[in-house]
């Protein structure tokens, strides 16, 4: 089942990513608890430190997952072994050590204090080195092997990730300029090049699981990513409304970020059409569920919830409220968490060269986690609407308004706990076979 031996390095990345996923969710629950019980851990781990660990763990594990996805699918697409499996393993340990050092540093107050880019300079530089090792490895593999639309798009996306990350190194003293180019990392990642990775990985999964012709899938792929970048690049304008930039961004941002819904809708059409027309039932039903779930949740989280507050006339009132938090949670879950879990669920049995195991448990993990995140999103959305009215229309003070939102924050915490339970099921279903595999290979050696 495993066509190329070097695909095996993906397993390191999958296990590492899942470990960080758990850490991210635990810190999420800690934060949700601090919001309703502000004295909880107040002296030990202040909110700002827990928050940077929560968001950074997310970013690092999603990237680690992308690396794993690439190492898994590129040999199959390029029809050759990875250029250097050893380099891929060294890269994994370097990346993990960098991530661990960053988190440890945060606990001691060592950080750069820019949202999501809190990593100290030397960690940022280490990330660049890790990214270059990775890009060298996969680019060499692709250059020497078969080129497909999927590898083209995946490489373009991953090179874009590295390129735009360079703007993280630019931190001008002028806050307006800082913000303008901070978005070149944050927006052009998650509403730009990351979506290329998402589309390419989904296209790969569709080819593998539905048996639809590559020709058809590739055309869909180009149409989807065209819609993505034609809307998403100028869609950056929706972050340039109120930060000291000219007023014309209100028009540009409103128009183009509204179009940003389209590529997500196209992805829903694409995945469902492929599965429907393919008519084949793949034996890894859980992986299929995650793939379809990814397209639907990304459409709602990134598409619909993004559109809710993207028009400048609405954003004027909702900007920086819990509406943003609601959108952020559902969008990241739908687009990137589910994408990674879809590929992990598909790849793990193949990597272990066995039939898919714990399918039912994995699917319970899907429903429980999705229910938890949805509940959290609804609670935060209502909190955001109430906050917008009280604070931005009535003009009540921030802290007065927050007291009024307490019920919704309790509901959000409940959603967070359900999410944690679901994540434990997902981890068990994916990692238990890995542990069993390691045990049996050790037993064979003994």
């Amino acid at each position, binding site marked *: 089942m495993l066509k190329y031996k070097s695909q095996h390095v993906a397993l390191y990345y999958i296990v590492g990513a899942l470990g960080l996923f758990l850490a991210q969710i635990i810190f999420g629950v800690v934060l949700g608890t601090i919001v309703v019980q502000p004295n909880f851990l*107040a002296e030990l781990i202040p909110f700002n430190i827990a928050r940077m660990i929560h968001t950074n763990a997310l970013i690092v594990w999603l990237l680690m997952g992308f690396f794993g996805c690439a190492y898994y699918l590129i040999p199959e697409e390029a029809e050759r072994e990875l250029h250097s499996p050893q380099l891929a393993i060294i890269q994994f340990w370097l990346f993990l050590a960098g991530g661990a050092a960053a988190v440890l540093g945060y606990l001691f107050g060592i950080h750069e204090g820019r*949202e999501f880019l809190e990593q100290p300079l030397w960690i940022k530089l280490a990330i660049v080195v890790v990214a270059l090792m990775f890009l060298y490895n996969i680019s060499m593999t692709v250059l020497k092997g078969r080129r497909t*639309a999927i590898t083209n798009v995946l490489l373009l996306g991953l090179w874009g990730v590295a390129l735009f990350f360079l703007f993280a190194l630019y931190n001008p003293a002028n806050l*307006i300029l800082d913000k303008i180019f901070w978005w070149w990392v944050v927006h052009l990642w998650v509403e730009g090049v990351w979506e290329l990775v998402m589309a390419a990985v989904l296209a790969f999964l569709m080819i593998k699981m539905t048996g639809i012709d590559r020709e058809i899938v590739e055309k869909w792929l180009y149409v989807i990513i065209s819609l993505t970048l034609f809307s998403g690049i100028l869609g950056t304008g929706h972050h340039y409304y109120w*930060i000291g930039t000219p007023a014309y961004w209100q028009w*540009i941002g409103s128009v183009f970020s509204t179009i940003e819904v389209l590529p997500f809708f196209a992805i829903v059409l694409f995945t469902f059409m492929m599965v429907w027309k393919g008519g084949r039932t793949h034996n890894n039903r859980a992986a299929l569920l995650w793939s379809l779930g990814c397209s639907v949740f990304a459409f709602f989280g990134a598409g619909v919830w993004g559109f809710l507050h993207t028009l400048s006339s609405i954003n004027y009132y909702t900007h920086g409220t819990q509406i943003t938090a609601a959108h952020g949670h559902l969008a990241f879950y739908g687009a990137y968490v589910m994408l990674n879990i879809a590929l992990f669920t598909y790849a793990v049995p193949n990597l272990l060269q066995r039939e898919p195991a714990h399918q039912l448990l994995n699917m319970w993990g899907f429903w429980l986690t999705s229910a938890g995140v949805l509940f959290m999103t609804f609670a935060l959305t209502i909190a955001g609407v109430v906050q917008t009215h009280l604070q931005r229309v009535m003009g009540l003070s921030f802290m007065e308004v927050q007291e009024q939102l307490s019920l919704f924050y309790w509901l959000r915490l409940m959603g967070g706990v359900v999410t944690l339970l679901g994540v434990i099921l997902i981890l068990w279903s994916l990692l238990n076979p890995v542990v069993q595999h390691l045990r049996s290979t050790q037993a064979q050696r003994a």
Partner: protein
Amino acid sequence: MSEILTNTAARNIFYGGTAFFFVTFAALVAHSVTEVNAFSSQHPVSPSVAKGKEIWERHACIDCHTILGEGAYYAPELGNVWLRYGGRENPEGARAALKSWMQSQPSKIEGRRQMPHFAITDTELDTLVDFLKWTSEINTQNWPPKISG
């Protein structure tokens, strides 16, 4: 669909369109940067404002507060805190009030969100206030709608 759009055409549209939109975007950002520079020549980023931004980052203020609506939504908006404290009418009073607020944290009041105590010297506090004052002068297109932030 195959008759209308070939795979090669789809790929070329993607590359051509992306290049077009990226160049357009970069040109607009370049124009915005010149506008920001024009603003900054009227409202210069003094060494003290720059130092204040460093203090702002050193203590990861943005991972609780928001500034111009961006941040962690756990603590009040600070883009206009200078105005909220009456800095326009009474700069000395606002400065003293902001500094003493920060120095008196954490409040340790049960059930109230806690701002940690940061080891910030008096001079550093002044630069932080200068940074917040400078930020309040940014033309935000009248955002936020209410002074409450």
